[in-house]
């Protein structure tokens, strides 16, 4: 297993106290958000796959806080934390998980496909390795337009084996594109351990053959991640070249919620949990007097409240109306005529108008739409309960979760 020595980890000094406090807050938000998301999944409020980033918070906050507002971030199917750290509204991120109209992607994307154009969070993507070419394209656009924007492209150790990894690193180096390729090495491509899926396990070295310099950071340490990502982003911006950064980390939960974790030992998980990026960072802040005693608990309390609010918001948000089913398949310009869809079964009705009518008729309680809405509303989240009671319930759910 790849690891990072104490000497390397000791490289970073703390930022200003208010900055450090904000990092702790941002990591805690991801942790609590993910825990609640898992809980909502167990209550069937969230469907599909749910990939949690618990354990990887330092890789997210360390990277995102090293970026400028104008930089682009593009991520994977494990992207709630990236969206949140970039500033996406937790209400809207949770609403997306709930499949609601107020979600960041209007309920069309779900857990794997968060997006926030305003914050230049250019999406989570469900295809492993699929986002690398997109990142290079964003780098190309920045280069073409002569801006200073850097694109940070996050992917997992499993994605380093996709063809796009070699293709894109070669092209980005050839064209000197300002892209930081950040491989979040959490030791497993789904359930396949790094040493069982990659001949070279020092992933930061895998860019060398393409002319892409590699750096490695301790992905359990937000300070080290921030320092190394800061250096990589500066090199991409100033030297006009791609850089590969390997953040060595570990996910504490399964690959997704549907993962019995038969491929790793409880001892290994426990060893890594000792290096919990949030507890470790909070401890260091207290040790170096950057924050006062009790501050981590106060941050946690505020964050839990924020996440509760997000859950309440998401649960109140309406499902996308049936007549919106065909929205945004196409950008409809004046020059476009004709039949877009086979479902336009009545001549003369174009551009999805007829589908909208059909879909609107499907709104009733007996319809598949109506039944799905009813199903999702069954579980009473107890949002009217007092905060203490809700917290106690949450703690109980955490203990009962077989994956924790």
């Amino acid at each position, binding site marked *: 297993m790849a690891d990072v020595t104490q000497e390397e980890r000791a490289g970073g000094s703390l930022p200003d106290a208010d900055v450090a406090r904000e990092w702790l807050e941002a990591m805690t938000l991801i942790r609590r958000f993910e825990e609640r998301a898992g809980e909502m999944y167990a209550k069937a409020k969230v469907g599909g796959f749910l990939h949690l980033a618990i354990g990887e918070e330092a890789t997210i906050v360390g990277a995102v806080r090293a970026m400028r507002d104008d930089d682009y971030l593009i991520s994977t199917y494990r992207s709630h934390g990236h969206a949140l750290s970039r500033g996406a509204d937790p209400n809207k991120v949770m609403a997306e998980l709930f499949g609601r109209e107020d979600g960041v992607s209007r309920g069309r994307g779900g857990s794997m496909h968060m*997006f926030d154009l305003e914050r230049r969070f250019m*999406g989570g993507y469900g295809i492993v390795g699929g986002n690398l070419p997109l990142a*290079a394209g964003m780098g*190309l*656009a920045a280069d073409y337009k002569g801006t200073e924007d850097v694109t940070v492209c996050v992917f997992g150790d499993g994605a380093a084996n996709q063809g*796009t990894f070699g293709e894109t690193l070669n092209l980005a180096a050839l*064209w000197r594109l300002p892209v930081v390729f950040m491989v979040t090495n959490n030791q497993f491509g789904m359930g396949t351990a790094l040493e069982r899926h990659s001949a070279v396990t020092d992933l930061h070295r895998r860019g060398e053959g393409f002319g892409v310099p590699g750096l490695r950071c301790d992905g359990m340490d937000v300070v080290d991640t921030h320092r190394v990502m800061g250096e990589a982003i500066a090199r991409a911006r100033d030297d006009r070249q791609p850089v590969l950064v390997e953040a060595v980390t570990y996910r504490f939960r399964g690959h997704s919620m549907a993962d019995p974790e038969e491929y790793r030992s409880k001892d290994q998980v426990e060893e890594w949990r000792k290096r919990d990026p949030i507890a470790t960072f909070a401890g260091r802040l207290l040790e170096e007097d950057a924050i006062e005693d009790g501050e981590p608990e106060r941050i946690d309390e505020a964050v839990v409240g924020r996440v509760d609010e997000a859950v309440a918001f998401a649960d109140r948000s309406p499902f996308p109306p049936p007549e919106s089913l065909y929205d945004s398949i196409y950008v409809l310009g004046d*020059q476009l005529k004709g*039949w877009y869809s086979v479902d336009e079964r009545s001549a003369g009705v174009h551009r999805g108008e007829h589908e909208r009518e059909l879909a609107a008729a499907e709104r009733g309680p007996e319809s598949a739409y109506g039944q799905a809405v009813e199903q999702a509303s069954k579980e009473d989240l107890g949002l009217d309960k007092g905060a203490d009671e809700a917290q106690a319930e949450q703690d109980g759910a955490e203990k009962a979760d077989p994956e924790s």
Partner: protein
Amino acid sequence: MAVVRYREALNQALREEMQRDESVLLMGEDIGVFNGAFKVTNGLLEEFGEKRVRDTPISENTIVGMGVGAAMTGLRPVVELMTINFSLLAMDQIVNHAATIHYMFGGQVKVPLVVRMPQGAGHQLGPTHSHCFEALFLHVPGLLVAVPSTPADAKGLLKAAIRDDNPVVFIEHEYLYGQRGDVPEDDGDFLVGFGQAAIRREGEDVTIVGISRMALTAEKAAKVLADEHEVEAEVIDPRTLRPLDLDTILDSVRKTNRCVIVEEGWPHGGVGANLAALIAEQAFDHLDAPIGRVTGADLPMPYSKPLEQIAYPHEPQVVEAVLATFTDL
């Protein structure tokens, strides 16, 4: 009007749109120094320079994906794939990203990307360089699909494609590159709108729909039908498959009561299969005979010239299929 070749018409379209809009750039394998495998991009590197005409490594999935990423962030890339068979290497980016991103992210971002590629048999390029895959792209919601068969349509549709805010799969044909035709001389704004079929020949007796090069084959067959069989065929070239000008086809079928669809691609799940279903759904009562289909043979394209020639449609098969619709049932 000026008479130009299909490849020159495409070249004009690219040149004019690059002159008109700084955000248009070209990417592809051997499109610059080599001037394009089929010379469509001839002279453009010299005129616009390496920033805007970019030779790429042989990495189809990545260059299309880069086109998507660049399109999401303000450029209007035109990516050339050397043949449609190579587009299969880029299918992930075309289907999972180009076609999907606008919808998947709730309409927040657009993907104004054009992916150009030639298809078609006739040059003895064998089983990996000769196929017609328009049906694969027709299958995908989110894409626009153009299949121009004349120099004028090639130019007008490509210009419209570059200006469009949707991802466009623009399917050219290797045989057509050398074909000549009239192209309007204008001020640079000659566009052919998507979703508007062309009626190549009017007729009362049967409707023949020809896709891509087969629009030309259908026209030739129509002439034979008129000269030798006293059958007046109406020949329709849809020009774009998504969106599809089904109304023009249905109006024609309601008039002629017979329809034959001609395509070079495979029969199962083909353009003709799809179109036949649509016509049957919409105009069943107007049909006097089963809808006929003439397609490429249901096999990988063979290399040997005589075999290749019988593996894709020619006029006699179209004539035969049309005459079959007049057989008493």
